[in-house]
């Protein structure tokens, strides 16, 4: 308990330190740090609409974060969540505008398409990782670029709606993911994300399959020795991670945008990965780190309007916070792992 308290305290101090540095940066661009902070808070939590806006930003980060958590737990690094999200978003939209089906069924079908697209998009890197140990960090990063280009191609060259927008036709209302409140686009995606976080947490800590994945991530040789089929498990873990990544795209397409366009959801995949890393791969912790990032994103929107500081300042502060926290997490770890050999990056 006190350990946990210590670590929270440490993280808090690290964030304060980063904010201090951030304040200096803000001063250099001639704005009052206090005003920026107040605007940020106001933008993130100033009214029910803004809180909803924050949660709206949190949702995709959270779901992507969970996708990342799944892969981390298995000792794998799916950095291609961005690509799975784009693929999921596109194919959910495609089902959404191509078919005319009864309401809930349509939405479920579109969501399944998102999940399948996410899985399909990671299937090849997953296969090669499982079978030939091909580094999944690089293959999934590269696949991101391809996913973005392919979905752009499909959007603009094949399925473009008429008019000047680079986007697909809108989906039918029957495929909408219902909104939670009348005053915001915040939708069931948030509930899906929260349920997923708890579900994934319970899966990993309480079930025998979750145990198998956990041990594979912690010590693959031990897991292999214990009779766990590493190849199959690696493949399944990556596929599951990709499925959740695709789901994130489905939620964005069906819950928020109701269509697919260029610049559909850039950066959420990476933010999710970082949120998961900061939470040390814990899905419950990821809820909070995702909320933190969501608040920063949504708060910074008001910044452009109300101050002379730009959103990039927030990007800088966000990066500083990540750096400070990442150092802080591991200062504590350092006490126990003193050997140099343990600190090698596992490919």
């Amino acid at each position, binding site marked *: 308990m006190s350990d946990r308290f210590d670590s929270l305290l440490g993280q808090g101090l690290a964030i304060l330190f980063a904010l201090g540095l951030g304040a200096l940066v803000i001063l250099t661009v001639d704005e009052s740090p206090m005003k920026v902070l107040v605007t940020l808070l106001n933008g993130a939590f100033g009214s029910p609409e803004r809180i909803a806006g924050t949660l709206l930003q949190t949702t995709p980060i959270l779901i992507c974060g969970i996708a990342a958590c799944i892969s981390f737990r298995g000792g794998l690094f799916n950095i291609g969540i961005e690509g799975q999200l784009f693929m999921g978003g596109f194919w959910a939209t495609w089902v959404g505008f191509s078919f005319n089906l009864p309401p809930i069924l349509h939405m479920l079908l579109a969501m399944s398409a998102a999940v399948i697209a996410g899985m399909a998009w990671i299937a090849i890197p997953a296969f090669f990782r499982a079978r030939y140990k091909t580094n999944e960090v690089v293959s999934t990063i590269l696949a991101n670029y391809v996913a973005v280009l392919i979905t752009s191609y499909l959007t*603009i060259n094949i399925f473009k709606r008429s008019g000047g*927008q*680079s986007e697909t036709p809108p989906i039918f209302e029957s495929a909408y993911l219902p909104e939670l409140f009348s005053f915001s*686009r915040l939708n069931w995606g948030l509930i899906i994300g929260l349920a997923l976080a708890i579900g994934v947490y319970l899966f990993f800590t309480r079930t025998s399959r979750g145990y198998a994945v956990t041990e594979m991530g912690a010590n693959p040789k031990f897991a292999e020795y214990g009779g766990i089929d590493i190849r199959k498990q690696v493949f399944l873990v990556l596929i599951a991670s990709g499925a959740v990544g695709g789901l994130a795209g489905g939620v*964005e397409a069906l819950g928020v945008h109701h269509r697919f366009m260029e610049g559909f959801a850039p950066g959420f995949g990476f933010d999710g990965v970082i949120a998961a890393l900061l939470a040390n791969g814990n899905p419950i912790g990821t809820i909070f780190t995702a909320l933190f990032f969501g608040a920063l*994103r949504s708060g910074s929107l008001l910044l*452009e309007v109300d101050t002379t500081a730009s*959103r990039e300042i927030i990007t800088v502060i966000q990066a500083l916070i990540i750096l400070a926290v990442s150092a802080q997490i591991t200062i504590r770890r350092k006490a126990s792992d003193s050997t140099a050999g343990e600190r090698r990056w596992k490919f």
Partner: protein
Amino acid sequence: KDVNVAAISGYFSQGFGVAIVEGLKKAEKDLGVKVKLVDTGNRALDYEEQFNNLAKGGEYDIVFVMGWELVDALQKTAEAYPNTKFVFIDGVLDSKHVVYANFAQNEGSFLAGALAGLMAEKGSDIDGLGDGKAIGFVGGRDIPVIRDFMVGYEQGAKTAAPDVRLDAVFAGTFDDPAKGSELTMALYGQGSDIVYNVAGPTGEGVLQASAAAGKYSIGVDVNQCNVAPGHVMASMLKNANVAVFDLVKDVVDGKTLEPGSVHTANLKTGGVELLLCPDVADKIPADVKAKLEELKADIASGKIKVATTTQ
């Protein structure tokens, strides 16, 4: 009464956006209005909140909007806040709640294409040109707005010089001048000696490549003649500064901007024009110049209809 003006876009840093900012700065200085620029970035999820943040307080009398990706958020917000005047720049939508400032970039590009085609036909008669009989086009991303330039350019070239081949390529990004320069080198290598850039910062690479290769390029949106002096043959200007300033002036003067009205800037109004760069102009033969004037008149009079992709 104070007039508050806002502009929202993700492209303030690129040619056309720069022109808009210029117009607003002028309005700030000459008309004493207050100006707020809101940079959208590129995250689709943010747009609606950004519009809400702008419109909610009701303090802005006129809001300029530029960028097709903002259209959905714009229409939603314009409907929800009928008291705020939204002006959509560079296109016309169905919505009756929005004022439109439309630029006929296809017309200007038509002339650019005609110039390039006519010059390419002259071939090695002209300093720095070969006999490739081809002209190039480097777009940023392959999106409808950019294609609008391209179809005009293509039509202009085909009309003025039917035998000249057009090689059109897209960099896939507006942020990679190195790629722009590389693409241009590739086009030069394949026989194009004049390349038209419609690619934002990527396009700067196109212009620089023309200087490096000793060939020619055509600028876009604003006067780019001085980016690579002696190698930028012309610039296709979209005089957004003038258009924006005039609209702000109308508001200051108390005129109402009719919702749904379309203010078109084209060759006829002079809102769009092809500027021959002075340092290259004397290399351009008189017959080419005459032909350009003739085509311009034909477009202005409606004799030639230039195709478009953004309606």
